[in-house]
């Protein structure tokens, strides 16, 4: 199939892993192509010989039987030789495999050093670069915290049933389902799970690493080109595994700095928002789990909604971020995503609340909440 991969539009989908846009995905693609060519070679040669044998030595039905063919029982040299040949072909795969395994294990120094300049530009205060400055957000420092590797940006990914939480601890930013990274900066990723096993995968940037409760996993990637890269949970994680998507948006350092400043800010014009009828419902019903920065809603179990409308989709990138879908979602989450909104018990008496519950709001109430959410730019 490898001959197809090169220029075929078949693989131009947004989640294709043969369209790498970063050094890790590049090397994995390169290994993939080696395995493609080696196995294709074996397949063509062996099936070729076999088909030749079948056609050449075939006896047509009804032909006279004739004598028996030579009764050959084996040939040690041929058998041994082919075994050795198979082993040698495997070495072509094995050697670069081991090299890449160790190369991709941690961020290589040269990538970290190369990232220093881009990272400082990406985390610089936007006012310094002349960009309009949104409301400042208190004490969060724009410089990476001490102890972090210079030139490497740390990202903590937390898997939930069925959405993703993204924290940049050095930048003081928490978001959900969509996150931005600066191009040219290695992103060092720590993976946590709040419930079951998930798997974090952005094919254009890197292969997946599982997100396992009680175990901190690591991976890293870097984007070499600005763009929107799709990701998906790739470990079956229950009812709505199919709707646990996410998106990584790689920006130029300057664009990232703008996003960062906006993301760090609280919601604009909190006092006006607090007058909205939807706000009260939101604080009563939603604030236990959700945060809207600058208001009384400070729950942390569920997606941070401060800049909800800045994202394109919501609820694990399952639905477009428009009024109609938000309304339907709040109206009946389990209908929209199987498995949402149930409370379970285990034999030890532990309970778990999975996903977004049906809050039993009236249509009018939902409309008011949606109007409020519309303001969360």
């Amino acid at each position, binding site marked *: 199939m490898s001959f197809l991969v090169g220029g075929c539009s*078949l*693989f*131009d989908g947004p*989640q*294709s*892993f043969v369209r790498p846009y970063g050094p890790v995905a590049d*090397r*994995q693609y390169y*290994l*993939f192509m080696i395995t493609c060519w080696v196995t294709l070679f074996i*397949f063509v040669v*062996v099936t070729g*010989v*076999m088909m030749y044998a*079948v056609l050449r*030595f075939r006896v047509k*039905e009804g032909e006279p039987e004739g004598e*028996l*063919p*030579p009764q*050959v*029982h*084996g*040939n040690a040299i*041929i*058998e041994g030789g082919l*075994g050795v040949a198979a*082993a040698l072909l495997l070495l072509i795969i094995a050697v670069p*495999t*081991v090299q890449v*395994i160790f190369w991709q*294990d941690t961020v290589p120094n040269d990538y970290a050093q190369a990232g220093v300049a881009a990272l400082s530009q990406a985390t610089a205060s936007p006012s310094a670069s002349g960009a309009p400055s949104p409301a400042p957000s208190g004490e969060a420092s724009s410089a990476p915290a001490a102890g972090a590797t210079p030139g490497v940006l740390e990202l903590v990914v937390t898997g939930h049933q069925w959405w993703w939480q993204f924290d940049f601890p050095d930048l003081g930013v928490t978001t959900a389902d969509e996150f931005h990274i600066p191009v040219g900066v290695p992103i060092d990723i720590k993976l946590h799970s709040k419930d*079951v*096993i998930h798997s974090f*995968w952005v*094919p254009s940037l*890197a*292969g*997946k*690493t*599982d997100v*396992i409760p*009680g*175990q901190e*996993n690591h991976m890293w990637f870097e984007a070499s080109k600005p763009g929107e890269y799709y990701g998906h949970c*790739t*470990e*079956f994680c*229950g*009812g*709505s595994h*199919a709707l646990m998507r996410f998106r990584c948006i790689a920006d130029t350092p300057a664009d990232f700095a703008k996003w960062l400043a906006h993301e760090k800010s609280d919601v604009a014009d909190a006092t006006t928002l607090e007058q909205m009828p939807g706000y009260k419902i939101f604080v009563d019903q939603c604030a236990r789990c959700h945060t809207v920065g600058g208001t009384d809603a400070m729950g942390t179990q569920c997606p941070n909604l401060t800049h909800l409308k800045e994202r394109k989709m919501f609820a694990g990138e399952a639905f477009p971020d428009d009024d109609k879908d938000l309304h339907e979602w709040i109206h009946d989450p389990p209908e929209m995503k*199987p*498995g949402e909104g149930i409370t*379970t*018990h285990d*034999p*030890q008496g532990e*309970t*778990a609340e999975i996903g977004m519950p049906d809050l039993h709001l009236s249509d009018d109430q939902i409309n008011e909440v949606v109007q409020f959410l519309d303001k969360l730019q």
Partner: protein
Amino acid sequence: MSVAVEHAGGVPKENPYAGGLWSWLTTVDHKRIGILYGVSALFFLMVGGIEALLIRIQLAVPENTFIGGEMFNQLFTMHGTTMIFLAIMPMGAAFFNFIIPLQIGARDVAFPRLNAFSYWMFLAGAIFINISWFTGEAPNGGWFGYANNTEKLYNPGHGVDFWIFGLQILGVASLVAALNFLTTIINMRAPGMTMMRLPVFTWMTLVTSFLIILAFPVITIALAELMMDRFFGTNFFIEAKGGLPIVWQHLFWVFGHPEVYILILPAMGIVSEVLPVFSKKPLFGYPVIVFSGVAIGFLGFTVWSHHMFTTGLGAIANAAFALTTMTIAIPTGVKIFNWVGTMWGGKIHLRAPMMYAVGFIAMFMMGGLGGIMHASPPSDAQQQDTYFIVGHIHYVLIGGSLMALLAGIHYWFPKITGRMYNEVRAKVGFWLLFVGLNLLAIPMHLLGVDGMPRRIFTYADGMGWNGLNMAATIGAFTIAIAVALTLHNLGSALRKGEVAGNDPWDGRTLEWMLPSPPPVYNFEKIPVVHHLDDFWYQKHPDLAHGEAAASEEAAHEEHGEHEDHIHMPPPSYWPLVSSIGVFVGALLMVFAEHKAFALIGVVILIFGVLGWAFEDVGPLHEWGTTKIENRKMMMWAFLGSDCMFFGALISTYLIYHGKSLVGPFPKETFNITTTSQSSFILLMSSLMMVLTLGAIKAGKMPAFRIYCFLTALFGCIFLGYQYYEFSHFSRYWLFRDNVPVQTGADLKLYQWLDKEPEALAEALRGHSEDATNTDALKGVPGVDDYTKFLTDNPDVKANLATTSGKDSLKEYHKPLWLATNLYGSTFFTLTGTHGCHVAIGVIWLLTLLIGSFKTSGHNPIKPDETGCLTVEVAGLYWHFVDIVWIVIFTVVYLLEYIG
């Protein structure tokens, strides 16, 4: 009652399959059981196929709402489980049953009734797991059932329970069958049938049996631990209590990867039979093919973590498992080269079985080469859990296993039924399957490259997946048509097919010298084998390479010559009764409000087993090829299996050692003196067992009875100690800090606190929060003991006084049980399982003791060869259980006191 068969010679006069439903329910004939397996497997192939079609309809177009997400999750779970455990594995078992005894020149398997039990257990498990559809809650955690997604907290329905118990029942069926076939193949061979003259299919069945025996105990333990978590609140995979979900994955794949070879090795065996026959040439490199199969089986246990490359095992582990995985490609490749070598220079007859065999090689290569692609962890990180893997597994299981099994069906159908199918329709079926498979699996690979994750019930438009998914759906329907056509062709051949004759293919192995279908007793006279492919050389004596030595000839002379009557085992319904017991027990376990109702099933099972044990089956089995009696050989194989069983349990204990988040910890609950005493007594019971066997061998029955009784008694004493440990000193930490506090008063207090914590809490609420203020507790039952305890233990009193009394008191006296912490879960499960083994041993010894008093009836224990052997087999088990205890005593107890 034994069936006496007259020496008639030639073709059987009557249909060997004659008889009504009852004759099938009670059959112990390996051929009938093979047919039952085959028909059931084809039925479940259709069930799994329908599930597949529903899945493919749902995925044909984006954002489809044909079936909901929940139904989809149930369907893919059941599709995988059904195809692997209920279709491919039993179809292999069908051929093991029907063909193996014929190929090795035997009249039946080593244990005919056990064989029937395997089938009925398989059917019980299959029905059990499918009953879940009618409750609306089919299993929905995937065929791999990854914890903690399958824990009660995340999967509260009954589906996973059905899956757990269903797989356990199926596991017993597979394990018992594997023990049976291992014994049969090693021990029931005809004279002259040396191991290196065994047909390759028989060889691969032997390797498969070893794999089942060593791999299934591990999944048994994993499932048992998950069941304990779900039903009894243990903490094996509960992250909040320190459990590690990754442990499930290790246990599952230590089973799961050998399982892949359990599915493919019989297929390789079938193809190795078909290719030489239709090429008119011997298999190219027979010894290499055999040893490659053995090597694949062995290496199959060293690669499980390649299913876990993305779980964060670390670079070194990933590199190591990548290399072992690639190593497996070498013996696999060698097999493929030798198959091609077999065809090369032959006279190839492209009949239906041969087309399937050639198709198998090509399609299995697609699967196998895909396997090499994801043997590279960095590359696999992109492929893992995408449709790339789904395409791979379907090449392996349809292109590999199913194609080879269809080759086998078309190859042996005339032997099994006596009739021939329509060749043209069979070939059309092949081509449809071939096209359908590629139309399914190539798009699946491309979808994987395009980033489509597996196990998703819907996908967004605009991902570039639409056309490929539609193509895969069309491929799936093509496969369905192919299977339907093939089954129709075979079905109509049953009625209208031409009479096939004994040897329609010019076969090479012993089964082709028999009538089609073979008579009940298979071989009128047990053949004497001189060659690999012996039947071929009977037909072509001029080709025989090397004459059989005269001495070998003479040695075989006496065999089979002096048989006036052929004794076939009589039918029995006890295997069916026993499996019904298991089925009922499992059903009650899932549904009954009180789990103790499940004991009803156990009672039925015991009833069945006892009926079985005391049934008259006529003369006992002959001594086998190896001069080791069948039962003894099977016991050794079972002990190997049991090693893996305890290995998995002890591994779990060690992995979780020191990982408990709350106390008590092992040393606080141990009393090494007490346990040393009980260990010593158990060891002495082994000595008694040796004396028991010595006595019966010397013919001293009174001494035998005394020693046998003492062995059982020592076992009981050990169990008594264990009971005391479970109910007293471990439970109440009576030896905390290794200071015995086991005065009667203290114990009473602990028990009171354990049973009536509410009474204490109530008393404290009513009077004072201070648990040391015993004045306030006046009138509460047992408080005098409590007062005395505090007086005797001023440090405890001081400790209690400084903290919130009530909680601290409860904490201090918290009894240890399964749910307390990881230590409680692993300790009681491990030692309790061992205790069950001892208890079974005691019951076994007592039946021997009772049997020795019998003067008439069936199977009395007498100082003859049979009696000695019966005792020896029990002794093997007993010694093994003792050895396991030495390991447990060392690992669990003694290691606590080192360093």
